[in-house]
Protein backbone atom coordinates (compact mmCIF):
# COMPACT_ATOMS: atom_id res chain seq x y z
CA UNK A 1 0.00 0.00 0.00
CA UNK A 2 2.86 2.34 0.89
CA UNK A 3 4.60 1.57 -2.38
CA UNK A 4 1.38 2.27 -4.24
CA UNK A 5 1.00 5.60 -2.45
CA UNK A 6 4.61 6.50 -3.20
CA UNK A 7 4.08 5.67 -6.85
CA UNK A 8 0.91 7.79 -6.97
CA UNK A 9 2.79 10.63 -5.31
CA UNK A 10 5.60 10.34 -7.88
CA UNK A 11 3.01 10.40 -10.64
CA UNK A 12 1.46 13.48 -9.11
CA UNK A 13 4.81 15.27 -8.90
CA UNK A 14 5.66 14.27 -12.44
CA UNK A 15 2.29 15.51 -13.64
CA UNK A 16 2.83 18.79 -11.80
CA UNK A 17 6.17 19.17 -13.54
CA UNK A 18 4.66 18.39 -16.90
CA UNK A 19 1.88 20.91 -16.37
CA UNK A 20 4.47 23.46 -15.34
CA UNK A 21 6.57 22.76 -18.41
CA UNK A 22 3.48 23.01 -20.60
CA UNK A 23 2.57 26.32 -19.06
CA UNK A 24 6.11 27.60 -19.54
CA UNK A 25 6.15 26.47 -23.12
CA UNK A 26 2.70 27.71 -23.99
CA UNK A 27 3.00 30.86 -25.94
CA UNK A 28 2.09 33.55 -25.84
CA UNK A 29 0.14 34.19 -22.67
CA UNK A 30 -1.79 37.11 -21.28
CA UNK A 31 -2.77 37.43 -17.64
CA UNK A 32 -4.43 40.07 -15.49
CA UNK A 33 -3.10 40.50 -11.96
CA UNK A 34 -5.02 42.27 -9.21
CA UNK A 35 -3.44 43.12 -5.87
CA UNK A 36 -5.56 44.04 -2.87
CA UNK A 37 -3.30 44.63 0.08
CA UNK A 38 -1.94 41.14 0.78
CA UNK A 39 -4.34 39.34 -1.55
CA UNK A 40 -3.58 38.54 -5.16
CA UNK A 41 -5.86 37.46 -7.99
CA UNK A 42 -4.49 36.14 -11.28
CA UNK A 43 -6.85 35.78 -14.23
CA UNK A 44 -5.97 33.59 -17.20
CA UNK A 45 -8.29 34.68 -20.01
CA UNK A 46 -7.12 31.96 -22.38
CA UNK A 47 -8.03 29.24 -19.90
CA UNK A 48 -11.07 31.06 -18.51
CA UNK A 49 -9.72 30.52 -15.02
CA UNK A 50 -8.64 32.61 -12.08
CA UNK A 51 -6.89 32.01 -8.78
CA UNK A 52 -7.35 34.18 -5.71
CA UNK A 53 -4.65 33.93 -3.04
CA UNK A 54 -5.46 35.00 0.51
CA UNK A 55 -2.34 34.01 2.42
CA UNK A 56 -3.40 35.72 5.65
CA UNK A 57 -6.42 33.40 5.72
CA UNK A 58 -4.45 30.46 4.34
CA UNK A 59 -7.11 30.26 1.66
CA UNK A 60 -7.01 29.99 -2.09
CA UNK A 61 -10.01 30.21 -4.39
CA UNK A 62 -9.84 28.59 -7.82
CA UNK A 63 -12.43 29.82 -10.29
CA UNK A 64 -13.50 28.05 -13.46
CA UNK A 65 -15.35 30.57 -15.60
CA UNK A 66 -16.15 27.98 -18.24
CA UNK A 67 -18.25 25.90 -15.89
CA UNK A 68 -19.10 28.72 -13.50
CA UNK A 69 -17.67 26.82 -10.57
CA UNK A 70 -15.18 27.56 -7.86
CA UNK A 71 -13.27 25.64 -5.25
CA UNK A 72 -11.90 26.92 -1.97
CA UNK A 73 -8.65 25.44 -0.70
CA UNK A 74 -7.55 25.75 2.90
CA UNK A 75 -4.30 24.96 4.58
CA UNK A 76 -2.08 24.75 1.54
CA UNK A 77 1.31 25.56 2.98
CA UNK A 78 4.20 26.86 0.97
CA UNK A 79 6.03 24.01 -0.76
CA UNK A 80 9.78 23.63 -0.61
CA UNK A 81 11.24 24.92 -3.87
CA UNK A 82 14.09 23.12 -5.60
CA UNK A 83 17.52 24.77 -5.69
CA UNK A 84 17.45 28.07 -7.50
CA UNK A 85 20.01 27.89 -10.25
CA UNK A 86 19.70 31.57 -11.08
CA UNK A 87 20.81 32.55 -7.59
CA UNK A 88 24.14 30.84 -8.10
CA UNK A 89 24.94 32.61 -11.33
CA UNK A 90 27.68 35.16 -11.60
CA UNK A 91 26.13 38.40 -12.77
CA UNK A 92 27.19 41.84 -13.88
CA UNK A 93 24.62 44.57 -13.38
CA UNK A 94 24.63 47.91 -15.19
CA UNK A 95 22.23 50.71 -14.39
CA UNK A 96 20.24 51.92 -17.38
CA UNK A 97 18.59 54.85 -15.64
CA UNK A 98 14.95 55.85 -15.60
CA UNK A 99 12.35 55.83 -18.34
CA UNK A 100 8.61 56.04 -18.70
CA UNK A 101 6.84 52.80 -19.55
CA UNK A 102 3.11 52.84 -20.17
CA UNK A 103 2.82 56.00 -18.12
CA UNK A 104 4.81 54.61 -15.19
CA UNK A 105 8.27 55.58 -14.00
CA UNK A 106 10.60 52.60 -14.17
CA UNK A 107 14.28 52.02 -13.38
CA UNK A 108 16.25 49.86 -15.76
CA UNK A 109 19.16 47.46 -15.50
CA UNK A 110 21.13 45.31 -17.88
CA UNK A 111 22.17 41.98 -16.38
CA UNK A 112 24.81 39.78 -17.93
CA UNK A 113 25.09 36.38 -16.34
CA UNK A 114 27.09 33.24 -16.76
CA UNK A 115 25.87 29.93 -15.39
CA UNK A 116 28.37 28.16 -13.21
CA UNK A 117 29.34 24.82 -14.65
CA UNK A 118 26.96 25.21 -17.59
CA UNK A 119 28.21 26.70 -20.86
CA UNK A 120 25.34 29.15 -21.19
CA UNK A 121 25.23 32.93 -21.13
CA UNK A 122 22.25 35.13 -20.52
CA UNK A 123 21.63 38.82 -21.06
CA UNK A 124 18.59 40.51 -19.61
CA UNK A 125 17.17 43.99 -19.76
CA UNK A 126 14.81 44.78 -16.92
CA UNK A 127 12.80 47.83 -15.89
CA UNK A 128 11.27 47.89 -12.42
CA UNK A 129 8.14 49.80 -11.46
CA UNK A 130 9.07 52.58 -9.08
CA UNK A 131 6.84 51.31 -6.28
CA UNK A 132 7.86 48.83 -3.60
CA UNK A 133 5.63 45.86 -2.87
CA UNK A 134 5.65 43.61 0.20
CA UNK A 135 7.77 40.54 -0.43
CA UNK A 136 4.93 38.06 -0.06
CA UNK A 137 2.67 40.03 -2.37
CA UNK A 138 5.41 40.26 -4.96
CA UNK A 139 6.02 36.54 -4.73
CA UNK A 140 2.33 35.78 -5.15
CA UNK A 141 1.93 38.19 -8.04
CA UNK A 142 4.96 36.95 -9.95
CA UNK A 143 4.77 33.37 -8.64
CA UNK A 144 8.50 33.47 -8.10
CA UNK A 145 10.49 33.73 -4.93
CA UNK A 146 13.57 35.87 -4.47
CA UNK A 147 17.11 34.64 -4.14
CA UNK A 148 18.56 34.60 -0.63
CA UNK A 149 19.96 37.87 0.65
CA UNK A 150 23.56 38.37 -0.27
CA UNK A 151 23.37 36.77 -3.69
CA UNK A 152 24.57 38.70 -6.70
CA UNK A 153 20.96 39.35 -7.71
CA UNK A 154 20.41 41.47 -4.61
CA UNK A 155 21.99 44.35 -6.55
CA UNK A 156 18.57 44.66 -8.20
CA UNK A 157 15.51 46.18 -6.52
CA UNK A 158 14.13 42.93 -5.16
CA UNK A 159 11.06 44.62 -3.69
CA UNK A 160 9.78 45.97 -6.98
CA UNK A 161 7.75 44.57 -9.83
CA UNK A 162 9.51 44.20 -13.18
CA UNK A 163 7.46 46.00 -15.84
CA UNK A 164 9.66 44.87 -18.68
CA UNK A 165 12.06 41.99 -19.03
CA UNK A 166 13.75 40.63 -22.09
CA UNK A 167 16.09 37.72 -21.49
CA UNK A 168 18.21 36.13 -24.17
CA UNK A 169 19.92 32.90 -23.18
CA UNK A 170 22.23 31.03 -25.50
CA UNK A 171 24.70 28.19 -25.31
CA UNK A 172 28.33 29.13 -25.63
CA UNK A 173 29.86 28.56 -29.04
CA UNK A 174 32.35 26.04 -27.67
CA UNK A 175 29.70 23.88 -26.01
CA UNK A 176 27.99 20.83 -27.47
CA UNK A 177 24.74 22.81 -27.31
CA UNK A 178 26.11 25.58 -29.53
CA UNK A 179 23.30 27.14 -31.50
CA UNK A 180 20.70 26.62 -28.80
CA UNK A 181 19.11 29.80 -27.60
CA UNK A 182 15.85 31.24 -26.38
CA UNK A 183 14.59 34.78 -25.93
CA UNK A 184 11.70 35.48 -23.64
CA UNK A 185 9.76 38.69 -23.26
CA UNK A 186 7.74 39.68 -20.23
CA UNK A 187 5.83 42.95 -20.33
CA UNK A 188 3.47 44.50 -17.81
CA UNK A 189 1.26 47.51 -18.27
CA UNK A 190 -2.24 48.96 -17.91
CA UNK A 191 -1.23 49.60 -14.30
CA UNK A 192 -3.96 51.37 -12.36
CA UNK A 193 -5.31 51.64 -8.83
CA UNK A 194 -8.24 49.54 -7.66
CA UNK A 195 -11.11 51.23 -5.85
CA UNK A 196 -13.40 49.98 -3.10
CA UNK A 197 -15.87 48.49 -5.58
CA UNK A 198 -13.14 46.21 -6.87
CA UNK A 199 -13.08 44.32 -3.58
CA UNK A 200 -15.61 41.92 -5.11
CA UNK A 201 -12.83 40.61 -7.34
CA UNK A 202 -11.48 38.78 -4.34
CA UNK A 203 -14.64 36.83 -3.56
CA UNK A 204 -16.23 33.95 -5.50
CA UNK A 205 -18.36 35.34 -8.34
CA UNK A 206 -22.07 35.57 -7.61
CA UNK A 207 -24.05 32.72 -9.12
CA UNK A 208 -21.09 30.34 -9.33
CA UNK A 209 -21.40 26.88 -7.80
CA UNK A 210 -18.95 25.84 -5.12
CA UNK A 211 -17.49 22.36 -5.60
CA UNK A 212 -15.55 20.38 -3.03
Amino acid sequence: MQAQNAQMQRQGVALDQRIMMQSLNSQPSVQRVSIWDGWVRIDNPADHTAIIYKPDQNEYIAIDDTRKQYRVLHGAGAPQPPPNMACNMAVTVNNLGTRQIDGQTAHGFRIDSQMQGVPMTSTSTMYFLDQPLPAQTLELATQYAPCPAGSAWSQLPVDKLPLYQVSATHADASSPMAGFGVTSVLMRGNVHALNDADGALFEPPAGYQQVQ
Partner: protein
Amino acid sequence: MKSWKAWCVGASALLLATLAAAQNAPVRIQYDQLREYLNPGAAPPPPEAFAQEYAKLASQPPPQPVSAGAQRAEITSSALAMAAESEIEQRFALMALGIAGMGLGGSPLSHVPVLGKQIGGRVLAKGSIEANEN
Protein backbone atom coordinates in the same frame (compact mmCIF):
# COMPACT_ATOMS: atom_id res chain seq x y z
CA MET B 1 21.77 73.75 20.70
CA LYS B 2 19.40 71.58 22.63
CA SER B 3 16.45 72.60 20.47
CA TRP B 4 18.49 71.90 17.33
CA LYS B 5 19.19 68.38 18.57
CA ALA B 6 15.55 67.89 19.45
CA TRP B 7 14.54 69.08 16.00
CA CYS B 8 16.94 66.61 14.40
CA VAL B 9 15.61 63.75 16.53
CA GLY B 10 12.03 64.71 15.73
CA ALA B 11 12.70 65.06 12.03
CA SER B 12 14.48 61.71 11.92
CA ALA B 13 11.61 60.03 13.72
CA LEU B 14 9.12 61.59 11.32
CA LEU B 15 11.17 60.49 8.33
CA LEU B 16 11.45 56.94 9.64
CA ALA B 17 7.73 56.83 10.39
CA THR B 18 6.97 58.06 6.89
CA LEU B 19 9.24 55.48 5.34
CA ALA B 20 7.75 52.72 7.49
CA ALA B 21 4.26 53.79 6.51
CA ALA B 22 5.25 53.76 2.86
CA GLN B 23 6.60 50.24 3.25
CA ASN B 24 3.41 49.01 4.89
CA ALA B 25 0.94 51.07 2.89
CA PRO B 26 -1.86 48.99 1.41
CA VAL B 27 -1.30 48.27 -2.25
CA ARG B 28 -4.37 48.02 -4.43
CA ILE B 29 -3.42 47.87 -8.05
CA GLN B 30 -4.22 45.94 -11.19
CA TYR B 31 -2.11 45.33 -14.25
CA ASP B 32 -1.91 43.13 -17.32
CA GLN B 33 1.07 41.05 -18.22
CA LEU B 34 2.11 39.16 -21.30
CA ARG B 35 4.78 36.66 -22.10
CA GLU B 36 6.20 35.85 -25.47
CA TYR B 37 8.99 33.68 -26.76
CA LEU B 38 10.86 34.91 -29.76
CA ASN B 39 12.43 33.06 -32.61
CA PRO B 40 16.21 33.23 -32.65
CA GLY B 41 17.34 36.51 -34.06
CA ALA B 42 13.98 38.22 -33.69
CA ALA B 43 14.14 41.72 -32.25
CA PRO B 44 12.29 42.06 -28.94
CA PRO B 45 9.67 44.78 -28.63
CA PRO B 46 10.83 47.92 -26.82
CA PRO B 47 9.41 48.73 -23.37
CA GLU B 48 7.12 51.37 -24.84
CA ALA B 49 5.38 48.81 -27.07
CA PHE B 50 3.27 47.28 -24.31
CA ALA B 51 -0.03 48.63 -25.62
CA GLN B 52 0.55 47.32 -29.14
CA GLU B 53 1.81 43.94 -27.93
CA TYR B 54 -1.06 43.57 -25.50
CA ALA B 55 -3.64 44.45 -28.13
CA LYS B 56 -2.07 41.93 -30.48
CA LEU B 57 -2.00 39.08 -27.98
CA ALA B 58 -5.27 39.81 -26.21
CA SER B 59 -7.15 39.80 -29.49
CA GLN B 60 -6.11 36.26 -30.30
CA PRO B 61 -9.03 33.87 -29.83
CA PRO B 62 -8.66 31.67 -26.75
CA PRO B 63 -8.51 27.92 -27.27
CA GLN B 64 -11.77 26.02 -27.14
CA PRO B 65 -12.50 24.48 -23.74
CA VAL B 66 -11.57 20.82 -23.68
CA SER B 67 -14.27 18.41 -22.61
CA ALA B 68 -13.99 16.92 -19.15
CA GLY B 69 -13.69 13.43 -20.60
CA ALA B 70 -10.86 14.42 -22.89
CA GLN B 71 -9.09 16.12 -20.02
CA ARG B 72 -9.41 13.07 -17.83
CA ALA B 73 -8.00 10.88 -20.57
CA GLU B 74 -5.11 13.25 -21.16
CA ILE B 75 -4.31 13.54 -17.48
CA THR B 76 -4.41 9.78 -17.02
CA SER B 77 -2.19 9.11 -20.01
CA SER B 78 0.17 11.89 -18.97
CA ALA B 79 0.46 10.48 -15.49
CA LEU B 80 1.18 7.00 -16.78
CA ALA B 81 3.70 8.26 -19.29
CA MET B 82 5.48 10.41 -16.76
CA ALA B 83 5.55 7.61 -14.21
CA ALA B 84 7.67 5.65 -16.64
CA GLU B 85 10.27 8.35 -16.92
CA SER B 86 13.39 8.24 -14.83
CA GLU B 87 14.30 10.51 -11.93
CA ILE B 88 17.14 11.91 -14.01
CA GLU B 89 14.67 13.20 -16.53
CA GLN B 90 12.64 14.78 -13.76
CA ARG B 91 15.73 16.48 -12.41
CA PHE B 92 16.54 17.70 -15.88
CA ALA B 93 13.04 19.14 -16.17
CA LEU B 94 13.62 21.05 -12.95
CA MET B 95 16.92 22.33 -14.28
CA ALA B 96 15.18 23.50 -17.42
CA LEU B 97 12.57 25.19 -15.29
CA GLY B 98 15.28 26.96 -13.40
CA ILE B 99 16.82 28.21 -16.61
CA ALA B 100 13.50 29.20 -18.14
CA GLY B 101 12.33 30.76 -14.91
CA MET B 102 15.24 33.10 -15.06
CA GLY B 103 13.80 34.63 -18.14
CA LEU B 104 10.10 34.17 -17.65
CA GLY B 105 9.10 34.72 -14.13
CA GLY B 106 9.07 38.42 -14.01
CA SER B 107 12.14 38.28 -11.93
CA PRO B 108 15.55 36.80 -12.37
CA LEU B 109 15.48 36.10 -8.68
CA SER B 110 13.48 33.01 -9.18
CA HIS B 111 13.39 29.29 -8.96
CA VAL B 112 10.00 27.91 -9.95
CA PRO B 113 6.49 29.29 -9.97
CA VAL B 114 5.94 28.04 -6.46
CA LEU B 115 2.23 28.53 -6.14
CA GLY B 116 1.66 27.47 -9.71
CA LYS B 117 3.24 24.17 -8.79
CA GLN B 118 1.25 24.01 -5.63
CA ILE B 119 -2.04 24.66 -7.31
CA GLY B 120 -1.35 23.05 -10.67
CA GLY B 121 -1.88 19.43 -9.82
CA ARG B 122 -4.58 19.99 -7.28
CA VAL B 123 -7.09 22.30 -8.79
CA LEU B 124 -6.68 23.56 -12.26
CA ALA B 125 -5.37 20.82 -14.46
CA LYS B 126 -5.41 22.80 -17.68
CA GLY B 127 -8.23 24.94 -16.44
CA SER B 128 -10.78 22.48 -15.25
CA ILE B 129 -11.99 21.96 -11.74
CA GLU B 130 -14.17 19.13 -12.91
CA ALA B 131 -11.21 17.21 -14.22
CA ASN B 132 -9.83 16.96 -10.71
CA GLU B 133 -12.99 15.67 -9.22
CA ASN B 134 -12.62 12.23 -10.69
